[in-house]
């Protein structure tokens, strides 16, 4: 009996040594957070100016569906020239209804808190994060603001860009962005990449109708791949310079890739104004 006890103690001791990690096959490779280096690009990059609208919204914002209608009409009108992201605000307006998924993301909150005060009402929108007479031009998107979009689209693009996306495996994606300096730019620029998703169905508070089930949310900001304010564009800024960068990311698992788009925006690092944008299917 004593021998059995001793052996049992030793067996327990042996088990305490049994340290062996197991990695599931879908976890052999993980995103390292590393970005590729900037290189010269040989790609053909059309000198197209696009407009980027970021609409701040929320499922508890009763007037936000109206803004959706306005933006939907603009999107139909401008097609690929208009790039839209719907940022669900990091406040009670964005708080999910019932047991819906939370469409707010941390980096969307970073943007909101940067541009707006706590008392900012929804919906609101920014167009290329542009300044109007010295102040940030906050747009009330419940009415058409196509004339402002036209003004942006009528500009000669200082920088133009294209983006490409490809799936490596499962939720792992590669992204590649090519930039072209159509004019010399002396300011430091940044490149920000993020993913938006269409056709997310949630409850939505709607003016006059109350809580509406299976409301279609489009252009929803789901994931910012880079830092919230992007990565530095490594370029001399001279007219004619073409640069490219590749990076990879893992799409969040609750996204439906078929409904997702990748958006790239080039901004002025100092004042955050957006120079141009591009969008592609994931």
């Amino acid at each position, binding site marked *: 009996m004593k021998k059995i006890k001793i052996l049992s103690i030793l067996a327990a001791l*042996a088990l305490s040594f049994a340290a062996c990690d197991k990695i599931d096959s879908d976890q052999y490779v993980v995103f390292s957070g590393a970005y590729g280096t900037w290189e010269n690009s040989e790609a053909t990059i059309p000198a197209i100016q696009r407009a980027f609208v970021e609409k701040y919204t929320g499922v508890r914002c009763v007037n936000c569906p109206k803004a959706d209608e306005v933006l939907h009409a603009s999107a139909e009108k401008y097609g690929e020239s208009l790039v839209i992201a719907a940022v669900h605000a990091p406040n009670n307006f964005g708080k999910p209804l019932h047991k819906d998924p939370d469409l707010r993301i941390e980096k969307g909150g970073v943007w909101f808190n940067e541009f707006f005060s706590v008392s900012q009402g929804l919906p609101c929108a920014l167009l290329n994060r542009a300044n109007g007479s010295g102040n940030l031009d906050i747009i009330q998107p419940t009415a058409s603001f196509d004339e402002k979009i036209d003004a942006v689209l009528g500009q000669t693009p200082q920088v133009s860009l294209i983006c490409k996306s490809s799936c490596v495996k499962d939720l792992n994606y590669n992204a590649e962005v090519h930039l072209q300096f159509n004019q010399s730019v002396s300011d430091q620029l940044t490149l920000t990449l993020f993913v938006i998703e269409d056709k997310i169905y949630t409850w939505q508070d709607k003016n006059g109708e109350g809580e509406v089930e299976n409301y279609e949310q489009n252009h929803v900001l789901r994931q910012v791949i880079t830092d919230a304010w992007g990565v530095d564009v490594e370029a001399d800024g001279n007219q004619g310079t073409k640069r490219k960068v590749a990076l990879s990311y893992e799409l969040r698992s609750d996204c439906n890739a078929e409904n997702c788009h990748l958006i790239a925006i080039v901004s002025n690092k100092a004042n955050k104004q957006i120079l141009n944008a591009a969008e592609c299917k994931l």
Partner: protein
Amino acid sequence: MKINYKHYTLLALMACAGLGANAQGIMGGHVTGNIQLDGQISSADSIIGAQDVPEKLLMNARADILYTNGDFSAGMRFEAYQNPILGFNAKYKGQGIANYFASYNGERLSVTVGNFYDQFGSGMILRAYEDRYLGLDNSLLGIDVVMRPFDGVTIKALAGKQRYYWEYGAGLVRGIDGEVNFNSIIKSMADSKFRFTMGAGFVSKYEDDQTIPYPENPSFKLNLPLNVGATAIRADLSYGNWGLQCESAFKGQDPSIMNDYIYRKGQAQMINLTYSQKGLSANIQAKYVDNMSFKSVRSESGEMLYINYIPSITKQHTYAFLSMYPYATQTTGEMGLQADLMYKFKKETLLGGKYGTDIHLNGSVITGLDTSRIGGAGTYGYTTAGFTPGELYYADASLEVAKKLNSKLKLTCTYGYQIFNPIVEGHHGDLHHNHVVVGDLTWKLNKKNVLRFEAEWMGSDSKYDSNVDDKRCGDWIMGLVEYNFTSAWFVSLSDQYAYNDGVGNYYNLSVGYTHGATRLQLGYGKQREGLLCIGGVCRQVPASNGLTFSLTTSF
């Protein structure tokens, strides 16, 4: 982690005091030790590929000192590589105390702290050992406990870090092993002809995470297991003249540079059946190894930091041409068989003659595994078709007949046939098929004077190609004359010459003197580049041309 000299200053002083006391009588204990000095002077030879040695003189030296007092012992080893002789890793350059320990060895408990060597079973999951000729030392610095709670049961537990030249590897090795001798613990089996021992062990290594980029996409990295475990179970049975040893080992996911960072688990199986009686012994061995390279640092590709050891099942030849193509164990994957038979024809029989005749027949074949590739780093790696053999790596068959011709002459004749695949050394090319014939005649002139003649021939289908630069290729002849006189001196002269399809003429002259426990040897000649393998573990030996000397002594 650098070796810290402060930790064993006291130990060193104690050992030195022991020497001063004429190696005896410190507090009732005693001091023993041994010293070895190997030196080399080599100069350039473009034909054999020897390079000039800038230092002119290379030297390896070591001294082991052991103090024993009852159940207590302590020891240290001084090593000096000023600079390392050719073939030893340049990281050995330097000198200092490379090994130190203190140990208590009681009836039921043994404890060693400091550097220690140990082994679980045949070593397939853990073998900390040292081989000075290979330049290999994977001792563990830590604590090693051996418990014998009652007769027939042995438990080992250990933890430590492995020696890495003059430092220690970052990986932490932990292990526990138990062995039960049933003939000791079951009284009714005590006198049985059936002997039965079983054992099992578990070893785990821990290593911090690091960034290994995913080759397919550098923005991704491998998700590395920080703890890698390996376990083995073994049995040793015998009944009368028969014996059977078997061991199975399994290893968890261990992506490393050795397996191209794949996530496949590893396993090794070994079985050995033996039979022996007076005048006859035979054994058959089988081995299967799949992804069993187990190192404490995943990025180490050299000869160091192996936690385990996969035993070799090919014959370790002693004659020059038979050992020209040694087989290096492929820890990433191999399978093989070996059969060995030794028989003595009795005196006064047709084949035995007046003095009897010894024959030794050995055959082995090693192949790769039949695998289907899935991918490289960051994948499962490959699948195997069970125990189906893959590409032929090595085959060896030899017959040795030794016969005493009269009271003064003994003749040993050997024929060997080998097939060697250069892929086991990391090269591509055709298989080498070699026939080797050896004649070895020993002439005992009188009690103190012995002459030995050796003649060897090797015929090979391999041809020297300067692009591959394998200087073993071609057909070779060799002659050797060795004279041992006054029981203390010996002198030998040998020459190996590639007479067809090869390059090189390797002559050597050696003189040696032995007095008591001291031996001095001088050699002058040329050394062909190649592999030196001991037990399937190999190191590359570059060509050399010049003088070698060696001094060993013990006290």
